[in-house]
């Protein structure tokens, strides 16, 4: 079985938000909700400022608090390591939303179930990449199988220093962030 992960090369993100639009279009995300977002973070004291473009989405954590808190088993790990939601089992108690350190879950107001990024599970089954990855014009989002040593994500993570968000929470996220990776083919 694969073990899916995403690498986000922040130096390649131009903040065009195409990933946000592609995700909403692909997954019928309600207008008021988002499964992915791009933060534009300005840090420092004028005039020495730096800007960071940070794409955020569900981290499909190995030790996912949303999975352990879910009282009905609706939030669960699939064999490919991704965290998915069985909508039929969801009661809409919102415990998973509260438990997520990354604030990436929402309630689908029309149907009442909790929802979030699924790594475009339906596309993966067809051998395609997630919509945000396929549409990323700067090549900032890289998706692949960590268990395959020849996959692009495995190679990058072997060669390049990387980080995960909110490591201190101990959730074991599977979205990796890198910077300055210009030599990628």
């Amino acid at each position, binding site marked *: 079985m694969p073990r899916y992960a995403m690498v986000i090369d922040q130096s390649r993100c131009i903040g065009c938000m195409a990933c946000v639009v592609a995700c909403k279009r692909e997954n019928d995300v309600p207008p008021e909700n988002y499964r992915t*977002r791009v*933060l534009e*973070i*300005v840090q420092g004291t004028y005039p020495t400022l730096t800007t960071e473009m940070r794409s955020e989405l569900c981290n499909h954590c190995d030790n996912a608090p949303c999975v352990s808190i879910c*009282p009905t088993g609706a939030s669960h790990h699939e064999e490919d390591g991704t965290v998915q939601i069985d909508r039929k089992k969801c009661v809409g108690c919102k415990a998973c939303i509260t*438990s997520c350190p990354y604030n990436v879950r929402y309630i689908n107001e029309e149907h009442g179930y909790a929802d979030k990024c699924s790594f475009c599970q339906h596309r993966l089954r067809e051998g395609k990449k997630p919509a945000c990855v396929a549409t990323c014009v700067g090549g900032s989002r890289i998706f692949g199988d960590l268990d395959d040593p020849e996959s692009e994500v495995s190679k990058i993570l072997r060669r390049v220093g990387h980080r995960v968000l909110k490591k*201190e929470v101990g959730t074991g996220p599977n979205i990796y962030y890198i910077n300055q990776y210009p030599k990628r083919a």
Partner: protein
Amino acid sequence: MELSITGTNAITYPVMHVWDWRVAIYLFLGGLSGGLMTMSAINYLRPGRKGPMQSVCCWQIPVMAPILLSIGLFFLWLDLERKLHGYLFYMTFKPLSPMSWGAWIVLVIYPLMILYALAALPDEVKARIKNGFVKNVADAVAPHLSKLAKLNVVFGVLLSIYTGILLSTFVARPLWNSAILPLLFLASGMSTGAAVMIIIAKNKEVKLFFTKLDIWLIFFELLVLALMFYGHYTADAAHRAAIMPFFNSSHDTFPYFLSIITIGILLPLAIVLKFLEVTGKHTEEVSGFGLFLMNTSAIFVLIGGAIIRFALVYAGQLSGYGYNMM
């Protein structure tokens, strides 16, 4: 370092706020009904109690406990986004999910509460029951009041402490993620339970007993509250940031600032009023002024308990790690 976040759209600054007053009311009523279970059972079991068991006042308290818990659970049900799917809580048991535990614990607690309430009914009240089955059950369990009361002490504590355990397991919310939070909710639940005992009881001796007991419970509650803030203050940056809304009187955080000021006034004031009452001279009956002191302090305790739940439910959801630290 100065940090600012700018974005081209609202999604660049996500604010999570999903649990509202309904959950706070549930936590308050859940803690209170746990307190009522324990306190009313203590009333039956305490060594200094006078008279036969069922004739001791306050048979209404064990009856109130399941009703208040039901109202609390009704508010929790109102908070569910898919209300008709509520039965799914009982289609599985998730050992790592405190919510799953809570759903199942309720099934154990309800029978205990109801049997205890029936066992505690005095004969004159039982005589008014028209339903034969209920009357028979009440007669059958009456001899077991002492055992049921002991079980209610334990399960009342478990119910009160559970409401805090639920929140304390959220690693993503530093304000809640503390092992001392269940103790705070336990102290608050027991204290509010004692407050209701004081208001409902007719017997002066019972009122005085719970007034004395509540002094200790409020002291314990305030101590735990102070320890929780101190623990957070000396912990990591996220925990420290999580308590800051309570100490910042700016526009955004004023309700939290006000809540801690109110608790800081109401609960110590309740201790003073109770102290005045228990150290005063007592006649056979409670004087009008004594009754005023007791009821006023009990109401202060109830308001304080409710404020603690509301403030913590809302402020906890503002807390987090990383950029969304308060």
